[in-house]
């Protein structure tokens, strides 16, 4: 068989570079946000790849005014919002009526006791899917300990106080939905 020196072997992993370091440090957080925000593993995989491709092309525009994590989150949120918007045109996504959760007797302050099973991720996704995209995003961002309320506010276009207020309702709504997805351990 003739050799083809002009055809490069596809690379299996990213070669050592600042971009490879960026990917290794933040890919878990970016993939997780995309996965739980979009609710679809295949689309989250595509979205994560697109986000890092965009980041690679825009790396020279990064001025260091925020952390790399916040910068990557911003790209991810914009990308996922566009995807959700285009799906919304095809499927009706139901929003959450706050009044419903205000009247639901849910002890969101009491600890959540669950069994460590493979279905835990599915239960979490089911509960998140029941929230509005705004509440879903807030919970996912606040769960990242690297972000402050100020940064979450900047990423979602609101004040830190507004984040705190909405977060309270988002937690309550999530807890009520999560408890509906399965039996809780007494």
């Amino acid at each position: 068989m003739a050799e083809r020196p002009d055809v490069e072997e596809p690379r299996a992993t990213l070669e050592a570079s600042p971009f490879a370091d960026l990917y290794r440090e933040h890919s878990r957080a970016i993939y997780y946000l995309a996965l739980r925000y979009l609710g679809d593993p295949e689309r989250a995989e595509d979205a994560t790849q697109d986000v890092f491709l965009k980041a690679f092309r825009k790396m020279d525009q990064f001025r260091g005014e925020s952390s790399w994590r916040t910068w990557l989150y911003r790209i991810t949120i914009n990308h996922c919002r566009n995807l959700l918007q285009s799906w919304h045109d095809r499927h009706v996504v139901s929003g959450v009526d706050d009044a419903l959760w205000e009247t639901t007797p849910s002890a969101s302050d009491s600890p959540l006791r669950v069994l460590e099973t493979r279905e835990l991720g599915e239960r979490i996704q089911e509960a998140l899917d029941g929230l509005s995209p705004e509440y879903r995003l807030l919970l996912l961002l606040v769960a990242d300990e690297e972000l402050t309320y100020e940064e979450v506010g900047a990423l979602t276009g609101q004040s830190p106080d507004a984040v705190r207020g909405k977060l309270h309702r988002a937690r309550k709504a999530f807890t009520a939905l999560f408890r509906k997805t399965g039996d809780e351990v007494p």
Partner: protein
Amino acid sequence: MKRQTKNQTASETRQTPALRQETQPAVLEFNSVEELLRHDAIHTPVPPAIEHRLARALPAPPPQPAGPWWRRWFRGKRS
């Protein structure tokens, strides 16, 4: 024969609770929704396919410079 079967059954019965204990899933307690999500994030692996696809999509970095002339010279001397 019967006794043997009986013994077997007894030893199986003795082993059963231990086995059941091993297969029982652990009970996890989370004090907040954020804690639950953090646990979920830690246990959600990133599909390796993403890195493979990125590696193929990105342009190869420029080749590393060969180093100073004296290092190349020494390398040549050794071989």
